[in-house]
């Protein structure tokens, strides 16, 4: 007797049910979980975005290769162009896809701050990997938003104290981009410089991606500052420094974490020598797992360097994956779990979020550009006295 259609359906259903209920059988495959990465892959800060993306992909590749991992992680990489409007579109795309469990999101402060509500409304956990504006974590108590890197508050405190108290500079000309990032940096450095006893001679805001800074630098030069400080990102920082030299502005150049990239040294060339920059955490090679990270990154054969914030993207991806492994691919549970991260062992050292989801990174590293490379101040020939910072040389003239 040939089986009826109903019998066939029953048979197929039974086989299907058996596959679902017996994950350890030969049929079993790891369930796919999708993670989003959002950062600037095009535009002026693309080098940092690409370094972050590669580091994120490296973390996912490593975890997928680990047989102990419960899920198979897929990735959705989106470009925010370092522009708030584009970032909101990218955040909407990721968060409206129910397949995306969580995201490692944003290098630029302007994009990270613009997308907070999008992730919150969609209930999608988003761990910021590079943006340093304090308000990204401290302006709300949304469970979805966490940040693995530090904020600019500590950075500017250390930067101001170092310039005034350690190096003895007294007068400063401030130039900053007019994004939230640049403005906030200018606000905090001004506060801490004044507290440390420094004098601000002028503060000038400039458009992001501005090409010509000769007018601003000529204006600053007239005040004869000992330090020209720039609050902005690498491409603009390069222009300010190169044009400073061309205009003969005899002052020390000091930047923020935004200019601490290999690209700054490569593009500014000899002009980069003696530039100061400050970044949260320790240098990648000195991180507890930095050597292993750099070796794995090199082995993976990425075209672009990991840049200063690559390790943070790598760590963020690993913490997010750890949370999914622990509670399953459920957005709400993952968000709760991420917010309660305590003493996580990572390549950047222990990660611990405060009640706002902010990693409490207390260490700020001071860097100086020496022979085309960023060198930790303490290890540099400027600190040992073998070389003199340009600003200190000019002071003696």
């Amino acid at each position, binding site marked *: 007797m040939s089986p009826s259609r109903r019998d066939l359906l029953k048979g197929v259903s039974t086989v299907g049910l058996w596959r679902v209920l017996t994950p350890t059988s030969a049929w079993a495959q790891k369930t796919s979980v999708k993670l989003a990465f959002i950062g600037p892959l095009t535009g002026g800060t693309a*080098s940092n975005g690409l370094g972050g993306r590669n580091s994120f992909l490296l973390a996912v590749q490593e975890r997928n290769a680990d047989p102990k991992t419960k899920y198979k992680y897929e990735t959705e990489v989106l470009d925010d162009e370092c522009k708030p409007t584009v970032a909101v579109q990218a955040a909407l795309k990721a968060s409206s896809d129910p397949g995306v469990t969580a995201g490692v999101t944003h290098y630029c402060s302007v994009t990270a701050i613009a997308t907070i509500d999008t992730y919150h409304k969609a209930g999608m956990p988003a761990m910021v990997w590079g943006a340093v504006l304090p308000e990204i974590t401290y302006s709300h108590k949304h469970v979805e938003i966490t940040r693995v890197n530090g904020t600019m508050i500590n950075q500017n405190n250390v930067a101001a104290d170092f310039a005034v108290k350690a190096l003895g500079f007294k007068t400063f000309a401030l130039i900053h981009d007019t994004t939230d990032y640049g403005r906030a940096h200018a606000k905090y450095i001004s506060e801490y410089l004044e507290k440390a006893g420094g004098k601000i001679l002028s503060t000038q805001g400039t458009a992001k991606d501005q090409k010509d800074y*000769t007018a*601003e630098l000529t*204006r600053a*030069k007239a005040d004869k500052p000992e330090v020209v400080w720039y609050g902005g990102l690498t491409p603009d920082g*390069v222009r300010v420094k190169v044009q400073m030299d061309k205009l003969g502005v005899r002052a020390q150049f000091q930047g923020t974490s935004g200019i601490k990239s290999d690209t700054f040294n490569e593009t500014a060339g000899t002009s980069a020598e003696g530039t100061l920059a400050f970044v949260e955490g320790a240098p990648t090679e000195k991180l507890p797992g930095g050597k292993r990270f750099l070796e794995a990154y090199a082995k993976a054969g990425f075209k672009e360097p990991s840049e200063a914030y690559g390790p943070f993207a790598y760590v963020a991806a690993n913490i997010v994956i750890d949370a999914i492994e622990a509670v399953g691919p459920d957005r709400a549970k993952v968000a709760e779990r991420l917010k309660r991260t305590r003493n996580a062992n990572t390549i950047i050292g222990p990660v611990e979020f405060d009640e706002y989801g902010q990693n409490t990174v207390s260490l700020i590293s001071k860097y100086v550009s020496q022979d085309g490379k960023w060198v930790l101040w303490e290890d540099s020939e400027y600190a040992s006295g073998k070389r003199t910072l340009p600003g200190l040389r000019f002071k003696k003239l």
Partner: protein
Amino acid sequence: MPPLELLLQQTLNGVMLGMMYALVAVGFTLFFGVLDVIHFSHGDIFMLGAFAGLSALLALAAVGLRTPFVTLPLAFIAAMVVTGLVGVMAERVCVKPLARSAPLMTLLATLSLGLVLRESVLIFYPRGADPKPFPQLLPAGGFEVGGVAIRYENLAILGIGLAAMVAVDLIISRTKMGAAVRAVAQDPEAAQMMGVNLDRTVDATFFLGSALAAVAGMLSGFYYGEIHFIMGITGGVIGFSAAAIGGLGNVYGAMVGGLLFGLLQTTAAAFIPRGSEFRDVVAFAVVMLFLIFKPSGILGEKSVERV
């Protein structure tokens, strides 16, 4: 620094900036003068010129040619040929086929081409996302006159820029091709009846305007010491605005417009409180005033038509 010295130094800064704008603006005005089109990928052709020049300089250095007297002219020629040909291609792909469509279509097509050029440099140029250092081959050093620092490099840039503009002027006013360009700008149909080859004239115009953008791109590289794939976005918008201030279709107007725009931006940043934040606001507000009160620009459009 006393105010007069500051004023003179800022004026020099403005002239340097304006020179680059003027070279881009002349291209816009040539295209508009001949075909009544606004070629919005011209800003990205300016960027392409800078990258083509950089590639030529690096290639010449790789084969051992490093003498600026040899490498500079060769790099300029290479960059001008590349952008000239891309300009002609842009005209044949985005302008000519849409000649009978609404002007908006040409605008959209050229805007899209600009995006393609920009993203192509980002993707295909080695580490295209990063700003690129530009070889500093112009004479270094300088001198001071009345407290104003003048670099030899700046004089060389001004000299090359002026030479390029004079060359365009001579081509337009003294050559047979220039006469054809002027004839087509005045009345294409009558020009054709008088034996002017319209296609060849349009090609020549796009080649000339785009080659000039390469000069601007390379001078920008020498002046600022770096180039970046996004440099054409604002460069294009400002170049077009400068052409509009000077009078679209008028080559000399574009030169004046470019210089004026550069001076406006510099003056706003230098002498208005918090002016550096509003330099573009001030400069573009002046553009709007011109469009409202003198839409034909400083030196007048080529005809009564307006954009």
